[in-house]
């Protein structure tokens, strides 16, 4: 089961551990999102340096229903890759971002990618990771959020969009994997690093997207 976030309640999950904090590009974010209103902006996943504008985020753009993968540096410069496609109200969407280099980032929506090449001198010294937003909060259900310390290739991003579990995609480069079942007082990181997320303002439990989990023979 996923977590249901309401922007008006400023609901989010976070860790103050340096998830991807010291990791320079490339890296990858991916999650599933079911928007209530796709034209409301809101952040799904983000790495940031607390109290600054130094961040890397995957989220909905305001008003146009598109997904954006944006990096913003302390000096104020930013670059955003914007999806061609749009999200649909009440429909699960596979949302991803591959942060390739200072001048290349791609956003992935349901297996289709768009790229931005603006140069952004981001400082990779993040000390916080959030799901659900900061200032711009998401409204909708988020599940199966994961991060890698490599840039996943196109085939891998397409596989994630088909519903394959992050467990089955480049596990050697996994950093964190939050299924977001919504059952516990914190959200467990199912990967070895144990980057469990604290819950703020009680996002509710909601239905989960379809996922192909790995399983062995019996």
């Amino acid at each position, binding site marked *: 089961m996923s977590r249901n976030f309401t922007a008006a309640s400023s609901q989010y999950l976070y860790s103050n551990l340096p998830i991807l904090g010291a990791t320079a590009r490339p890296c990858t974010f991916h999650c599933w999102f079911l928007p209530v209103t796709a034209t409301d902006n809101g952040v799904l996943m983000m790495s940031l340096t607390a109290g600054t504008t130094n961040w890397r985020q995957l989220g909905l753009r305001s008003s146009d229903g598109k997904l954006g993968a944006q990096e913003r540096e302390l000096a104020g410069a930013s670059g955003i890759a914007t999806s061609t496609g749009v999200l649909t109200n009440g429909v699960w969407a596979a949302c991803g971002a591959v942060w390739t280099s200072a001048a290349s980032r791609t956003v992935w929506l349901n297996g289709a990618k768009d790229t931005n090449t603006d140069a952004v001198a981001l400082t990779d010294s993040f000390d916080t990771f959030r799901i659900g937003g900061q200032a711009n909060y998401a409204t909708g259900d988020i599940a199966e959020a994961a991060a890698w310390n490599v840039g996943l290739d196109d085939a891998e991003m397409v596989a994630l969009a088909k519903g394959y579990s992050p467990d089955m995609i480049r596990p050697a480069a996994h950093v964190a994997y939050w299924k977001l079942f919504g*059952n516990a007082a914190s959200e467990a990181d199912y990967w070895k690093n144990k980057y469990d997320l604290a819950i703020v303002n009680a996002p509710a439990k909601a*239905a*989960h997207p*379809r*996922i192909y*989990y790995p*399983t062995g023979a*019996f």
Partner: protein
Amino acid sequence: MASFPTTIKSFTTKVDGAGKTISAAHVNDLQSEVVAIETAIITGPFPIRGVSYTWPAADGSSGNALLTNGAGTLSWAVGPAKVFLQWDALGNRPPATAYATPDTRNAHAVLDFDGTTDEEAIFAGVLPVAYASGGLTIELYIAFTTVTTGSAHFQASIERIDLSSLDIDADSFAAVNESAAITAPATCGMVVKTTITFTDGADMDSLAAGEAFRLKIRRDADGTGGTDDITTDCELLRVVLRET
């Protein structure tokens, strides 16, 4: 008790082929040996290829097989396992729509089936070559998210994936078979088991030994095929497929 003789005694008088009368005593000797052999076979122990076996005193149950203690004493035991496959909730290969959703309950992986909308889960496998045309029994291990009363209803169907025949671009499940009423246990969190049976042949989409297949499990939440008056989630923990 007579023992099994290792040789038939020789007659004390040889008889030629000229029609001479055989001594009655000799016939009696021969008869005694035959009786001894019969008795040994019936009551045991008796040797086969140099090993003396003691058989059980009565027949076993249907499907039993003989078990040895390694010293020649035989007994009946449950026979070799029939065709058997099992999956837990992580084995689900969800359909594109109306799928049961993954969840956990106290660290148990479960699939949540909605209480008002029919939802499905699909499990894939190969029917073992040992399948002996006995039909299939599907066992579902189910818990209920909140309720302790009422009854749920599940259905199952099979899709045979016969080689060089079925186009897997489209689904091809045979008609569903029905579970009996699944009564919620009095304690929420307890697990109950229900079965759905298939007869060999068209009922199981003519699936044969050694063929790939998919098994679809559906909660019939809207009660099309049987009463389902529980409006909250059912949780599927395990699915077992065995030969009936």
